[in-house]
């Protein structure tokens, strides 16, 4: 697979530099939040939430790592600690030898960050103006800036968009624009938070291809959080799963499937019934969840949904339905099932 080739190239480049250098390291990192909850009219209860509960790992220069887990598992808290936004409660954390919490600004020159649903581009100005600002904020030498910009523009098809005000860009175009903005100062690490969320298939493919090339040619280390299984499969040589603030898996994407492979992968048929009913009973699928009038039916990914839908529609009062492709959550859920 092309993915592997990309990752290998990155690692090889690292070896040339004298052994795989550790770029990111965490030792027993914790993050505890004090949350105040309303208990009664005026009384407030204080209790602690361990968002990250003792995480340790190392990432070598040139790796592409997927960091995944259910919502609220501690993913974004970890990324915020790695980028210097949040201060860890305990443990040791270094990125490129820098303690992010203490030297936030120095670290900023060494990392690039893309927040999936939050653009850092200037809404009312042409795209290229945002890049001009980056050049000055990060004091990027002109020649290097021109070279980096040209490469990003070329690879991300930004040419026709440079003079367009950002507010007129589509979501996919804006995401590509944001990724370019994060790379102009040659960061050694690129953090991406849900880089393909909400994008159409073509845009997703473009973004992935670009990240692959970036890693292969520039040796940039990439850490991304995602809900999209394909991001992981097509990009990452390594994946880490976090749940309840703990690292529960660290290995190859293939191994992730094996860990969860109690059976072949399944798709999900989500039924919206007209009223609450006991779990429906149809051939070729099993009910995995009932929530009010909604029910989730799991069926083999290889099977067709059409006969299932026909069966359900004939026998139950159906108001709406949708089919969900397998995603990270399902894989993780099955991973737990497999372990248990």
């Amino acid at each position, binding site marked *: 697979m092309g993915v592997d080739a990309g990752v290998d190239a990155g690692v090889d480049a690292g070896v040339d530099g004298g052994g795989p250098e550790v770029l990111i390291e965490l030792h027993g990192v914790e993050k505890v939040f004090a949350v105040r909850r309303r208990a009664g009219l005026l009384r407030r209860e204080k209790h602690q939430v361990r968002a990250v509960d003792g995480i340790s790992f190392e990432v070598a220069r040139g790796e592409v790592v997927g960091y995944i887990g259910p919502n609220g598992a501690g993913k974004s*808290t970890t990324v915020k600690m790695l980028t210097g936004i949040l201060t860890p409660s305990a443990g040791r954390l270094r990125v490129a030898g820098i303690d992010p919490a203490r030297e936030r600004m120095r670290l900023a020159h060494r990392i690039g960050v893309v927040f999936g649903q939050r653009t850092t581009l200037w809404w009312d100005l042409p795209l290229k103006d945002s890049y001009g600002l980056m050049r000055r904020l*990060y004091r990027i030498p002109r020649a290097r800036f021109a070279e980096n910009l040209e490469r990003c523009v070329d690879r991300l098809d930004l040419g026709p968009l440079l003079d367009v005000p950002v507010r007129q860009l589509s979501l996919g175009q804006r995401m590509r624009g944001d990724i370019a903005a994060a790379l102009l100062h040659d960061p050694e690490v690129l953090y991406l938070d849900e880089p393909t969320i909400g994008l159409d298939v073509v845009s997703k493919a473009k973004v992935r291809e670009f990240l692959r090339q970036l890693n292969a040619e520039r040796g940039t280390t990439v850490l991304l959080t995602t809900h999209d299984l394909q991001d992981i499969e097509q990009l990452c040589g390594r994946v880490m799963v976090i749940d309840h603030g703990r690292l529960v898996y660290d290995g190859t994407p293939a191994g992730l499937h094996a860990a969860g492979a109690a059976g072949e992968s399944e798709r999900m048929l989500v039924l919206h019934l007209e009223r609450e009913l006991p779990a429906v009973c149809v051939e070729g699928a099993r009910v995995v969840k009932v929530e009010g009038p909604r029910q989730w039916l799991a069926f083999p990914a290889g099977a067709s949904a059409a006969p299932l839908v026909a069966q359900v529609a004939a026998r139950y009062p159906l108001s709406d339905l949708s089919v969900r492709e397998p995603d990270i959550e399902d894989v993780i859920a099955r991973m737990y099932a497999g372990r248990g």
Partner: protein
Amino acid sequence: MAEEVLVPAARRDAEPIRRAFGAGAAGWWGRAGAGLRGYRLIVGMWIRSTMAYRASFVLAVCGNAAITFLDFVAISIMFTHVDALGGFTLPETALLYGSASASLGLADLLLGSSERIGSRIRDGSLDTMLVRPVPVLAQVAADRFALRRVGRVVQGLAVLAWAVSRLEVEWTAAKVLLLPVMVVAGAAIFAAVLVAGAAFQFVAGDAAEVQNSFTYGGNTMLQYPPTVFAKELLRGVTFVVPLAFVNWLPALYVLGRPDPLGLPDWAAFASPAVALALFVPASLAWRAGLRSYRSTGS
């Protein structure tokens, strides 16, 4: 080539500088410089953004000048019914009005948007500022920089000029010098209040409006002669939140009137020192606020 790729130039270039200065020495001056530079760059972007909606900008500048102008019209209307308010004539009141307005206008122009930090915290976009190589305070101050606010400054200075032309005061060098010092130091005092207000939003984002009591409320108060107000109120704005140093004390000296609280004459010249002194608690509050944000994420 591989070396070139793996060790970006920015990092190589910066390394010796860092070694030479060390973490501490680069410290305050480095941050202040980086802050000013970042502030200037971001402000430039906002000004250009504003120009994308030119009609709205023109309306906003006029509106800004008008809002303060009508303020003064209201005071003028008061003076169509009376010759003096609290013993002060219209030109004397205009001196107070113009200087307070210009000071608040300047502070508001330069870092008035910092009050938006509450919504930045709520929608999480403060995080994007924390990954930039610019001090957060500079970014917050420059956020949504609104050039239209220059309207208030111009209007305040115009009223101030009119007042000076009408006042029957024996101008000495000290009095002449005191006028610009009053406006600038007053702006600095208001600026410190704005920084403290922004810091306050880290702990109580919903309570942002309290800040208005001290900025706009303080400004309204300072536009009128101090003799109009109850002694308790005067003590509060002299000793607790020292807004009296924005313009009252210097202006009283210019007008040759005694301070209702009996402060000595030299207090009129203390405004710059008060402004500097205020920045200490304000910046400590800011740092504490940012630290609490970075440890709680909210």
